[in-house]
């Protein structure tokens, strides 16, 4: 069985982040033979003073495969209760990934969570209307993390765009990159320019700065920029400053 697994509001300012906790949880599940995880996507949710996020209100969702949904769910619940940070409000969403399911109402909820303040009641109502194939649970504090957890799983199910957790580091001894060799080494499925237009030519590539991948149009995507006539994966950090002091 294929799943989307999303947790939210598990951290505080001094703890590990929710993305790291998700990866730790899925690593432990793999060790126990309960599930195998795919990559994690970060979704930015709405920033608003009425939302009790820790620092950036993002939600982390990974895919997973399991043969024992019940045991995996129990494991995740227990893991969150034992490992979430003090003062956090953890929520867990486990959503079945199946082409026979209609995610449209969930996706609508996820998009709303990126643009407006939602409540736990909104989340429970949306989950109830979706019916079976969705687990949503609170694991401490106010349990408000169910809002972001449901939103993250919904956005992932809808193949909505988000940043893939982690970064790619250049290989020090390899310089003769092309888009196809880069794709083969890093599992990239799609290249675009900064405007989102797909690049299909097998361009020569200079890979010297760490870069992050996107999950876009349902595929692992690398954004390619052209600098001084040279194509390169867009450097990880998007903001540069000019020193004026």
């Amino acid at each position, binding site marked *: 069985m294929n799943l989307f697994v999303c947790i939210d509001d598990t951290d505080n300012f001094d703890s590990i982040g929710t993305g790291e906790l998700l990866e730790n949880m899925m690593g432990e599940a793999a060790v126990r033979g309960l599930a195998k995880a795919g990559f994690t996507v970060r979704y930015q949710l709405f920033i608003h003073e009425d939302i009790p996020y820790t620092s950036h209100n993002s939600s982390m969702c990974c895919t997973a495969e399991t043969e024992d949904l019940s045991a995996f769910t129990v494991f995740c619940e227990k893991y969150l209760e034992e490992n979430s940070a003090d003062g956090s409000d953890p929520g867990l969403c486990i959503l079945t990934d199946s082409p026979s399911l209609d995610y449209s109402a969930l996706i609508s909820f996820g998009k709303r969570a990126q643009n407006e303040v939602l409540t736990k009641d909104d989340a429970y109502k949306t989950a109830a209307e979706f019916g079976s194939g969705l687990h949503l649970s609170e694991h401490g504090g106010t349990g408000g993390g169910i809002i972001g957890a449901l939103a993250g799983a919904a956005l992932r199910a809808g193949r909505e765009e988000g940043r893939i957790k982690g*970064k790619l580091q250049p290989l020090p001894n390899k310089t003769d990159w092309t888009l196809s060799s880069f794709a083969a080494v890093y599992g990239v499925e799609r290249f675009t320019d900064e405007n989102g237009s797909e690049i299909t030519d097998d361009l020569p590539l200079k890979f010297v700065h760490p870069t992050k991948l996107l999950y876009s149009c349902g595929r692992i995507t690398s954004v390619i920029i052209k600098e001084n006539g040279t194509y390169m994966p867009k450097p990880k950090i998007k903001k540069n400053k000019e020193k004026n002091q």
Partner: protein
Amino acid sequence: MKYLTQSNGKTVFTGGKSSFAEAAYTAENCPSFSEDCEDELFCDDAVSCYNCRYRRWNAVGFECVKRCLNE
């Protein structure tokens, strides 16, 4: 901490989200700076309030939850 000020009981950065030099200067002079996890880094300065785990983003910038102004 000349780029931090008090507003409605919170310590907020006065430079919004694009005052990179000011955010770096403030962090370089802050005993509480601690780098956030890699996925939440915002700019290319190793030390910057924009990359600090104690900054809490809001609609226009961020607040410093360590309240550096009073330290």
